[in-house]
């Protein structure tokens, strides 16, 4: 500090305090992480899930002489938290992202291709590999994956003498027949966010819709199907507000005879004894077709690190987490389908009531396989399409044309 004439000590003190205050507000640097600890960023904020994760991680880390530290934030904040960490160079050793978020992180060049840290790909299902890949390079490993199926109230269907519908026509008929009093025949999520988009995809894709060219028309019949269900009164008009949790609540309270939902609802469904339920495949436009549902789940990635040893440790932990037996145990724990082919086969045998999920995962598609980083914009455009069709603001064809405009061209 310069001392100018005419400045009294007191004013110097004032200035010193001011600068000190300012200095305290800035700076601050991350502590150097402990070399024997592997840090993980994930969305396991739920206590049970957090502890299950910790247990599996430690099972793998302890033999390697490593400790595990989980940082868990709500699922919709993982991406922004990871970005903040990246900007201060304090990203965790393992970053667990939702499959649909992977391309945007892979594109940054900040992730290590997974082959380089030693998790081989020969054992995993194709759909799970595409979930963890961007531009043909694997950046993430999925321990387990989920998809969507038709879950139905066995009692209501038996009373009506119905088998679970397998085609769209059957779905329309059964849903209409099962609609009585307070109970709608069919429930699904058409919310204007990721939930609704996820639930729309099995219909859109099975109809031949193309997320890269929304206005080609093949997806219009899927919009029509949803609209028919709502217009006929077989589904509530409120589906435009329901997320997948709401759909499950409707089903469990007996207000829906059938619903579209995923295996993550199984714990809730198993814990209640109000309704008897079973799982069936998702209905397809024409008999004999394979359904094309979306594949969902998280992928574990290894951010690039200046210290190759940290990356190697992360790779070792991932390798162990994805062994056949650990994947199987994890799949059992979270009701998702393991991605290791053998583990998936065993899982299917041991959980016959969830077998449709295991089969659906075989033909499931990754949301980002074709459009990569453009998925968030395209997903938004799709949600705009089904929302405007369901609320009567646009015809299916017009809605898809509008969606294509909104999604824009390849950038």
């Amino acid at each position, binding site marked *: 500090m310069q001392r100018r004439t005419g400045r009294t000590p007191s004013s110097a003190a004032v200035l010193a305090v001011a600068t000190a*205050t300012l200095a305290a507000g800035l700076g601050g640097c991350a502590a150097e992480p402990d070399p024997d600890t592997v840090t993980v960023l994930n969305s396991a904020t739920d206590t049970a899930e957090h502890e299950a994760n910790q247990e599996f991680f430690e099972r793998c880390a302890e033999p390697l002489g490593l400790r595990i530290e989980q940082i868990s934030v709500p699922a919709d904040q993982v*991406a922004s938290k990871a970005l903040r960490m990246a*900007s201060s160079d304090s990203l965790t050793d393992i970053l667990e992202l939702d499959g649909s978020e992977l391309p945007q992180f892979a594109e940054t060049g900040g992730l290590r291709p997974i082959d380089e840290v030693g998790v081989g790909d020969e054992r995993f299902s194709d759909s799970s590999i595409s979930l963890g890949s961007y531009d043909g390079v694997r950046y993430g490993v999925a321990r387990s994956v989920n998809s969507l199926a038709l879950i139905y109230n066995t009692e209501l269907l038996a009373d009506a003498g119905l088998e679970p519908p397998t085609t769209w026509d059957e779905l329309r008929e059964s849903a209409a027949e099962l609609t009585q009093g307070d109970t709608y025949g069919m429930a699904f999520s058409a919310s*204007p966010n990721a939930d609704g988009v996820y639930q729309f995809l099995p219909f859109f894709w099975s109809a031949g819709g193309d997320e890269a060219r929304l206005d080609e028309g093949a997806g219009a019949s899927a919009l029509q199907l949803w609209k028919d269900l709502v217009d006929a009164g077989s589904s*509530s*008009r409120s*589906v435009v*507000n329901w997320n997948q949790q709401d759909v499950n609540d409707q089903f469990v309270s007996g207000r829906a005879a059938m619903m579209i939902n995923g295996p993550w609802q199984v714990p809730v469904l198993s814990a209640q004894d109000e309704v008897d339920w079973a799982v069936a495949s998702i209905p397809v436009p024409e008999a004999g077709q394979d359904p094309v549902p979306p594949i969902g789940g998280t992928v574990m990635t290894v951010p690039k690190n200046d210290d190759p040893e940290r990356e190697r440790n992360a790779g070792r932990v991932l390798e162990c987490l994805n062994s056949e037996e650990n994947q199987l145990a994890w799949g059992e724990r979270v009701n998702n389908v393991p991605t290791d082919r053998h583990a998936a086969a065993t899982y299917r045998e041991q959980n016959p009531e969830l077998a449709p999920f295991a089969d659906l995962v075989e033909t499931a598609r990754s949301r980002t396989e074709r459009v990569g980083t453009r998925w968030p*914009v395209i997903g938004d455009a799709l949600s705009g399409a089904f929302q405007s069709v369901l*609320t009567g603001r646009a015809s299916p064809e017009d809605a898809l044309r509008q969606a294509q405009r909104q999604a824009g061209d390849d950038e």
Partner: protein
Amino acid sequence: MSADTSQRARRGAGRRRLYQWLFVLPALLYLVAFFGYPLVRNVLMSFQEFTPTTYFTGESPFNGLENWRAVFDNPLLGDAFWQTILFTVGSLVGQFTIGLALAVFFSRRFHLSGVIRAVLLLPWLVPMVVSAVVWRRIMDEDHGVLNSFLELVGLSADGVPWLSSPSVALLSAILVNIWIGIPFNMVILYGGLQEIPKELYEAAALDGAGPWRTFRSVTLPMLRPVVTVVLVLGFMSTIKILDLILALTGGGPADSTQTLGTLTYQLSFMQLDFGQGAVVGNVLILISAVFALLYLRVNRSDVGRGR
């Protein structure tokens, strides 16, 4: 001699000015660090390609008006703008009118008035997201309490689609926000009413003014400064509405409840295009700035007019 004193005086004045600045300095530094810097950064960001890559590489190349063009080409922007204005004006009018009516009502002491006033504060105490989730249930088209009630009193036969119709959803969101905002308006205005000297009312009564005339000629003019504060604070919190809408409708159905706040959120945190998110943020700042200037002008004209 005279030159010497004037020099000393000048030096004294200089020193005094320095002290004055030193006293202002902490506040100035605080403003620059916590308001100036983010504002400038946000304006800059709207001219940059600011994506996840930026966080990893630290590079955010300037891309001219590309973000602005993309945002202004986005059909959602116009809708979001008008819906934000509608939402804000609707909420403020509703909150203020009901809040003022309740404040006037409670300014007369009566049995249990304190208890009821305390109960009316509840909406303010409940977290916004919790309120929204509860209202989602109340407004459910099939099983909501609201429609059951309307049916019971015979106002509506087959249920109002509060949250499932694009033509009603924005109104529903406004109604919920009014419910949330009433206590704040009521408390501040009630405090303002307590400040009005009783003599004025006595004088008005002697002059033979009726209740409405008293309200117009005594209560409202005396409340003016408080009214301005309530409306300004209300405007600032309402224009950037996000959490209520996200929890109540998620911006739907068919984007009928998208606001500039939800659009910023969508662009920045869902699509991770922070440059475009900053553009919408700047639009919000501009609207607020226009409003702030109006507010300052109104206030300045108040000063010295003996109002």
